[in-house]
Structure formats: structure tokens, C-alpha cells
């Protein structure tokens, strides 16, 4: 049984501009110990999906539908108390901006200890010892000093390590990371990516890594799901995704990203901008920007097609470009539910 199963997840926000369909029928599975990158640009629904896994969306003006099953329990059917138990024990989260996620008026030590006291049956002394161990685990060079520091007194990289320590405090099985390195300098990003990869291996953690950066996904993930306008448009093992991108959006993203040694060649941008989520087109949401667009793309949303083992794409052109869909069972850890297609 997979650690996490998401089936036909939808999140809609009721706003002044109308009903915004931020996440629109997302389905995937994640096995224990696997690292999945949720890739997408701003507004693609990747962070909203992540928050829905923790049941963090409030009820006011938000409609969440579909199933999010963590270790056999549907997050959307749990009461708030049970959800908190889940957040403390099984799933935890690392945010993009450690300065806003940490409380400025408490020391790092106090914040780790509080997390432990809240979720674990420990006395204060034991919690303090555990806090120190956690900072060792995330390789903070002088843990005692870090414990006694307030968030503004330590560097950005150190703050992100402290955030990860808090997230690991209750020994989760699934770590959700929302752009954890985006606010960091590139040399510090390399350290944090390396640390997360190391922790994931050593602790057997499953990780969902939300990122807009193909390079970051290539560094850390076993598989990637590419999101566009609230849907997963392509999903594949990470090497396969880079070697054989099947969705025109993924291809476009790869061509538009500046790489080393591209000097002198014009970049191939994706024209236009992502659609308004309050007024999605009836067909494929990427059709207005797609270089391969056809009549059928505008008329009806595409189904999910198999490109290869564990490789799926939501594009009308897949059968023609990549051959007939194969029918063998998908053995890869992460896969997109075919029944959940629109």
C-alpha cells in the first residue's frame, strides 16, 4: 500500500473574481521513501495541492473535494484533532520563507521544544536533549548557540536548517517541502538540497518537493509531476522526464530555461501567459500557448495517456507521437491514476 494516495483532488476558492479552480482533479500515489517533485510555475496549483495534503485549507470560501489518503486515513474526513495528530506524527512541512514561518519572539530551541512537547510524550529535559540531537542531524555547526538564538540572529541557511529540524522533530514518514531553497543563495541552496537528499536516504523519508525550478527537481527527485493550471499534465521518473518530455508544456519549459553553454542561441520561450483560473478554457488549458495545438485540443480536455513505464501525459498528441499506449501494469512507485482523468 502506498504511503500517500491522492485521488481526484480539487480545491476551489470563492473569490470576488469568481470561482477560482486552483487544483482541478489531481491524482497520484507516493510510496514510502520516495522523493517526488511537484513542478510548476506560479499559479499552477502546486502549493495548494501540498497544503491540501495536510488539510490546511480552511472551510470559509474554500471547497476541497476528492481523497487524500495518508496511511489509510482520508485527511478530508478527519476531524481537526485527528488531523493535528497526523501533522505531528506522520506528515510535516517545510516552508519557503523560514523567516516568516518561524516565530520571531521565541528562540529556535524553544520552538523545537514546543513542537516536541505538543506531539510527543516527553518531559522538558528530554525535549531539550532531543532538540540538540535534531540540530546535529541537520548539521548545524554550533547547535548550542543556535538553540539559544532568535530567528533574526542566524543566517538564512541556518534558519532553513532549523525549520527542517522542527519538521523532523516528530519523526515523520512524509516531509512536504514548499520551495525550501528558493529564498536562498545558490551556494546555500546546494547545501540544503544535499542535506535533504541525505536525510531522505538515511531516514527513509518520503518527500514531496514543490519547486518551479527544473534544476532543483533534477537534483533531488526520483520522479516528477508537472503541473499546469491546476492539473498534473505530465508525470515520469526523473531521468525519463528530462530525456523524453512528452507534454508540450514540459518541453517548452525545458527549452525556455537558460542552461550552461547556451550562449549565442536564441531562447525558445513559451508565448503568452498562463490562463485565468477563474475562466479556464473548455479544452486543454495549455492549448492557447501550445506550438502543437490542433482543433481537438481546443474542443475537449485531453485524457491521460501512457508514454512509457511510469510515464504519463495529459495530451491528445501522445498516442500519435509516442506510439499506442501500452497496457502493462505500472510498476513505478509514483503514478497518475488513469481513471481520474477529466
Amino acid at each position: 500500500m502506498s504511503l500517500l494516495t491522492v485521488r481526484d483532488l480539487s480545491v476551489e476558492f470563492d473569490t470576488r473574481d469568481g470561482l477560482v479552480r486552483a487544483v482541478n482533479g489531481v491524482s497520484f500515489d507516493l510510496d514510502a521513501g520516495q522523493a517526488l517533485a511537484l513542478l510548476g510555475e506560479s499559479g499552477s496549483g502546486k502549493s495548494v495541492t501540498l497544503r491540501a495534503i495536510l488539510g490546511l485549507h480552511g472551510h470559509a470560501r474554500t471547497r476541497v473535494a476528492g481523497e487524500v489518503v495518508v496511511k489509510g486515513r482520508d485527511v478530508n474526513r478527519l476531524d481537526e484533532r485527528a488531523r493535528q495528530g497526523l501533522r505531528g506524527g506522520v506528515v510535516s512541512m517545510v516552508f519557503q520563507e523560514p523567516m516568516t514561518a518561524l516565530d520571531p519572539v521565541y528562540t529556535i530551541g524553544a520552538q523545537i521544544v514546543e513542537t516536541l512537547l505538543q506531539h510527543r510524550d516527553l518531559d522538558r529535559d528530554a525535549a531539550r536533549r532531543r532538540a540538540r540531537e535534531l540540530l546535529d542531524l541537520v548539521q548545524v555547526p554550533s547547535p548550542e548557540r543556535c538553540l539559544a538564538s532568535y530567528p533574526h540572529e542566524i543566517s538564512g541557511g541556518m534558519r532553513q536548517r532549523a525549520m527542517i529540524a522542527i519538521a523532523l522533530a516528530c519523526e515523520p514518514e512524509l516531509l512536504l517541502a514548499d520551495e525550501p531553497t528558493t529564498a536562498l543563495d545558490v551556494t546555500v541552496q546546494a547545501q540544503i538540497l544535499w542535506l535533504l537528499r541525505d536525510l531522505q536516504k538515511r531516514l527513509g523519508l518520503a518527500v514531496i518537493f514543490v519547486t518551479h525550478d527544473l534544476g532543483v527537481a533534477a537534483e533531488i527527485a526520483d520522479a516528477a509531476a508537472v503541473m499546469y493550471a491546476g492539473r498534473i499534465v505530465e508525470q515520469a521518473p526523473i531521468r525519463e522526464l528530462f530525456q523524453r518530455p512528452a507534454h508540450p508544456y514540459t518541453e517548452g519549459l525545458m527549452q525556455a530555461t537558460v542552461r550552461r553553454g547556451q550562449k549565442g542561441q536564441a531562447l525558445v520561450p513559451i508565448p503568452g501567459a498562463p490562463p485565468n483560473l477563474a475562466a479556464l478554457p473548455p479544452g486543454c488549458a495549455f492549448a492557447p500557448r501550445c506550438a502543437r495545438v490542433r482543433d481537438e485540443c481546443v474542443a475537449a480536455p485531453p485524457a491521460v495517456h501512457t508514454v512509457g513505464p511510469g510515464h504519463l501525459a495529459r495530451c491528445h498528441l501522445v498516442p500519435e507521437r509516442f506510439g499506442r499506449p501500452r497496457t502493462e501494469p505500472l510498476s513505478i512507485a509514483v503514478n497518475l491514476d488513469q481513471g481520474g482523468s477529466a
Partner: protein
Amino acid sequence: MTPAPSRTPLLEVRGLRKHFPLRGGLLQRTYAWVRAVDDVSFDVYPAETLGIVGESGCGKSTLARLVLRLVEPDAGTIRFGGEDVRGATRARMKQLRRDMQLVFQDPYASLNPRLTIEDAVAFSLLVHGTPRGAARQRARAMLGRVGLDPRLYGRRYPHELSGGQRQRVNIARALVLDPKLLVLDEPVSALDKSVQAQVLNLLQELKAERALTYVFISHDLNVIEYVSGRVVVMYLGQVVESGTADALADAPKHPYTQALFAAAPTMDPDRRIERPPLAGDPPNAIDPPSGCRFRTRCAFAMPHCAGAPPRLSSVGADHDVACYLYEAHAAVEAVTR
């Protein structure tokens, strides 16, 4: 692709310095100085793109503001087309700023939310004395050139545009004055990758079309390598290496430049970063390390790196590095020449 730079620089910066005081306490006494830019020199030749790369706190954005005298330098000289910019009067400075324009990182924060984008672009022309009707006409033409049809977008407000469109407005606003030099401070960093490519292509087209000279500031080494002919690498307020983009990419000399290249994700799952190339965060510019400022994170640090700071010295044609590892090399070069 980059035209061979003619040897008369358009912009000459020598020994530029800016230290910001930190004040506190009852009497607002200065208790420390942020050494944002410390003895920075470089030249920019007509029609080239000079890239300036470095991490947060390296002084690259302060440098952009110093060059245009939006922030007054403490020391150093800036010559633009041979003219001493720091000696210019207020009236002359206004003239000079027509020729040197700045594009900021945050395309939303740098636009007035109460002006339609047509008015925003026309505004700089009005400031410089263009009659209203002519200003509007030129603004509309400029918007069209950056890919925003003035009939569709001219009357819209900044909040009605996407990030990429707003950055196009900022570029139009800078270019409508027909400047010679454009200083771009992280112009694509706030944009999604697919939109980044659109704006980078637009900037390249405009540069060729109008024989513009760019100073392009970014923390993204891939972008810097892509757009620049020559590159200046900064660390904690100082230049640690400068050279052609090709020379830096092929054979980076300074341990910091090497680390920057090694830390950049490869976009290849089979070539992941094996070990983080550097430990720790960049130190604070308030109290930078003595001697070479990079020595606290440098794998090759030697005892005398803490002494006198290393000076920029030549390690090849148009390639300078400030590091004691290469001083011996530079000395040999000097003798054999």
C-alpha cells in the same frame, strides 16, 4: 556574437566605495558600518553587456544605484562618455540620467499603481520636457515595441498585468528616453522561467536594434553567462574576479567563482551535485573578515590570506582575479613580458 569592444569605455568606474552607517541608541550614534561596496573598479565598453554576479549582500544592487548616483558614493570616480558623473550639477545630472537608465527587479513595486501604463511610460518624457501629445505618441509606440499593443494595454493599470508584462512596461519606460546605457538589476529574477525567456529575448533584440550597452546584474550564473560578454564576480562588496564570460565558464580561477559554478544545478539527474562546494552562508557585510573576505569559506585559505587583502591581478587576456593562489603566476607573467 558580442561585438569586439572598442577600447574607449562608455562607463569607467574607479575605486567606488559606499559604507552605510548603522545607527542606534538614544542619540542615534553610528555603531557600525555596512561596507556595501568597497573599492570597486570596472569598465563598460560601448555595445557590450557587462554581467555582474554575486550572492545576496555582495553589493551588486548598491553598485547599480551608485553608478546612477541614486545613492551618493563615499569615494571613487564614475566617468560616463568621458564625463565625470560625480562632479555633475543637478541640472546636468538630469540630462545624464536620460542616457543612463535603470530597470529594477520587482516590476510591480517600481510602477506607480495609480498611473495607466501609457502614462507611466509617457511620464519620464514629460519630466524631460516633451510636450504631452508627443510624449503620449512615443509612449504608445514604445509599448508596441516591447510587445504590449497600446490599444489593448495602454489604458490598463499595473495590477491588471502579469509579472512579465509589467517588466515589459519598465523596459519601455527606461528605453523611451533613448538611453545609451541600461543598468538592469535582476530584471528577470521575479519572473517564471517561461516568461524569463521572453524578456531575455526582448532585451537582446532591443540591444541590437538600438546599439545599447547593458550592465546586467543577477545572482543567476546561467543567465549571466548567457547574456554577458564580460563578467564581474562580486563577493562582500568587492570584485574577486573579472573576465570574458567564456573564460569564466571554461576556467574559473577564484575559489568563489569555482564554487558558484559547482553549486548551480545542472538540470541533469545523472550529474547531481556530489558535495556542497561551500560550507556556511556568506558572512555579514557589517564586519567582513580581514584580508581576503572569502577566506572564511575558502578550502584553499592560507595564513597570509588574513593579512593584506589580495589585489586584482591578471591571469590571462582580459582576465583578472584577486586571490593569493594566483599572485605567483601574475608575478611570473610580469617578468616574462
